[in-house]
């Protein structure tokens, strides 16, 4: 096990390194100058541009830039923002991370519990009218752009019904020194619509995969054999079918994260949520390269880490893999 874990971790590190190189060279390959926009808006003397280029290391050869980039990355230094007054990207990202973790974590939790439950319910109620209805709804949710659903929900619940706030994470009247409880009570209603949107657009995929995996598992000989021994349906569902479906579900972990991350870019933009997603969207609007790159690097690290975690869990849950 430990030998395997070491090898698998090294592989993850290697994968991330290749991804980092890819991100770097993609930025250098594409036409266009990161500083072009800056000088566009505000006319600058050539000397000032040259000074800026030197400051961001853009006057160096690509390989040299890459080396500097990687060494800085290993120190946790993601460079400096071009637009936001030259603030370090790491600081910007760290400042925005908690909001995104709160939003993404809540959505992931809801997505998993609701999605797995719905999929399991579908798998055990195949052919019924209810199952078909749930299937149709999850297919429709799967087809929905998050930014549009967010807009529609904001319009319906925020503007028409006036039930919930549609922007920001806290109310403007919240005192800066408010207690944790007061702060939480203020954040909660702000959280509802963004989490609902993000959960709904990702729910369809989870439910559909779970239904597929569990349907397949329930048709297994193992399940029929368990029934032939008189085991109860709940034992069969959880110890037999569900355990058999866990493998395929874990393999999807690598799919959920990118889905949630991409979703959060749109959802945070719609609801002006102060997280990484809206930071990335703002950076895109202002072509703030280092910030786009910083968020991309962070997101990729999360994906590689998530896949590693899924593999470890899968191995821990399936004795056949442990021995292999």
């Amino acid at each position, binding site marked *: 096990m430990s030998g395997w874990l070491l090898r698998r971790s090294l592989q993850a590190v290697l994968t991330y390194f290749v991804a980092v190189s890819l991100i770097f060279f993609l930025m250098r390959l594409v036409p266009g100058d990161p500083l072009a926009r800056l000088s566009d808006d505000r006319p600058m003397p050539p000397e000032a541009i040259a000074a800026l280029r030197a400051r961001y290391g853009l006057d160096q050869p690509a390989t040299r830039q890459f080396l500097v980039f990687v060494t800085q990355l290993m120190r946790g230094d993601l460079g400096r923002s071009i637009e936001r007054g030259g603030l370090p990207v790491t600081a910007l990202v760290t400042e925005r991370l908690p909001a995104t973790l709160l939003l993404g974590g809540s959505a992931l939790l809801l997505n998993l519990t609701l999605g797995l439950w719905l999929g399991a319910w579908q798998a055990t109620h195949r052919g019924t009218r209810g199952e078909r209805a749930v299937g149709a709804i999850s297919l429709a949710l799967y087809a929905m752009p998050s930014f549009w659903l967010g807009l529609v929900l904001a319009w319906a619940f925020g503007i028409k019904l006036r039930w919930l706030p549609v922007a920001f994470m806290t109310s403007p009247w919240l005192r800066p020194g408010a207690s944790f409880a007061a702060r939480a009570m203020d954040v909660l209603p702000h959280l509802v619509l963004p989490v609902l949107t993000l959960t709904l657009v990702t729910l369809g995929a989870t439910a559909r995969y779970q239904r597929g995996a569990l349907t397949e598992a329930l048709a297994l*000989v*193992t399940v029929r*054999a368990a029934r032939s*021994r*008189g*085991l*109860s349906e709940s034992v069969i569902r959880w*110890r*037999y079918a569900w355990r058999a479906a866990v493998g395929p579900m874990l393999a999807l972990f690598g799919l959920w994260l990118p889905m949630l991350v991409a979703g959060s870019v749109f959802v945070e933009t719609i609801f002006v949520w102060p997280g990484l997603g809206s930071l990335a969207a703002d950076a895109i609007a202002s072509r703030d390269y280092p910030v786009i790159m910083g968020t991309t690097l962070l997101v990729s690290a999360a994906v590689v880490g998530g896949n590693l975690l899924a593999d470890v869990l899968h191995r821990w849950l399936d*004795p056949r893999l442990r021995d292999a």
Partner: protein
Amino acid sequence: MTSVLEVRELRVRFPGRAAPAWPVDGVDFTLERGEMLALVGESGSGKSLTSLALLRLVPAPGTITSDSSIRLGEIDVMSLDGDALRRIRGRRIGLVMQDALGSLNPVLTIGDQLCETIRTHFPLSRSAARARAEALLAEVALPDPARRLTSYPHQLSGGQRQRVLLALALAGEPEVLIADEPTSSLDVTVQAQILALIDHLRASRGMAVLLITHDLAIVAGRADRVAVMYAGRIVETGATRTVFATPGHPYTRGLLDSLPRLRGPVRLVEPIGGSVPSPDDWPAGCRFHPRCPRRMPACTSQPPVVPVAPGHTMRCWLPRTAP
């Protein structure tokens, strides 16, 4: 002798696009206490589905027709549902299914699987169930049973897995054991060991055994009686000795002729031409007649059940029309 299992007019229906299919279509047989009955037939004859039907485990969308009768001693199996049905499965009838590796849960140890079955049927403590599990593994002659309790299915050989499946089927102390092709995936020597083990368990526990197989050769000398199944029906039943000596039905003869013989004059093995028809399109009348070397005009209508010898019957027109 008293019968432990009595099956009458068992029919399994599968809805089809054009017409429904009847893979099991009017099966009758009786299993006496302590006897071994072999249900023999080619693949596609409906014998595995019959074994599942006895436990009401026909996979959806198949259904057992309501006029079918399955009596287990005093119990009418067809009238049971839910928990009452669960108390039959494993407790009164044990089933060893065809796919040994597939029948075991790959993520649970042998001990866990045995214990959960034991504790489903008997109110035993964890440690008592554990002891019982070890005894069961010893009973099926699995070497080193205590250590095997902690093994996972993939760590065992094919023959060992078959023994574990037998132990699982015995865990509820059933009076009927159904063994569906228990040896088809094993080496010849291991096959003989497993069959001998089943025979031994039958004798030591006084249990009735329904042995399902496509291989007549393993039936001889083991089963008390044999029932030959073709296209969803039993075409011939009788004591193994008499069926082998004086087969009545042309299909049984064909099966016996296709066996290589060790004794007697050397002759070529003669297989039966063609294959089992499809259950949504059974031939009219005697279902074997399109393949039968002795077919005649009468064969297109339903043949009667006729006696061949005492306790030996078949479904065929031959005796009625033979000179």
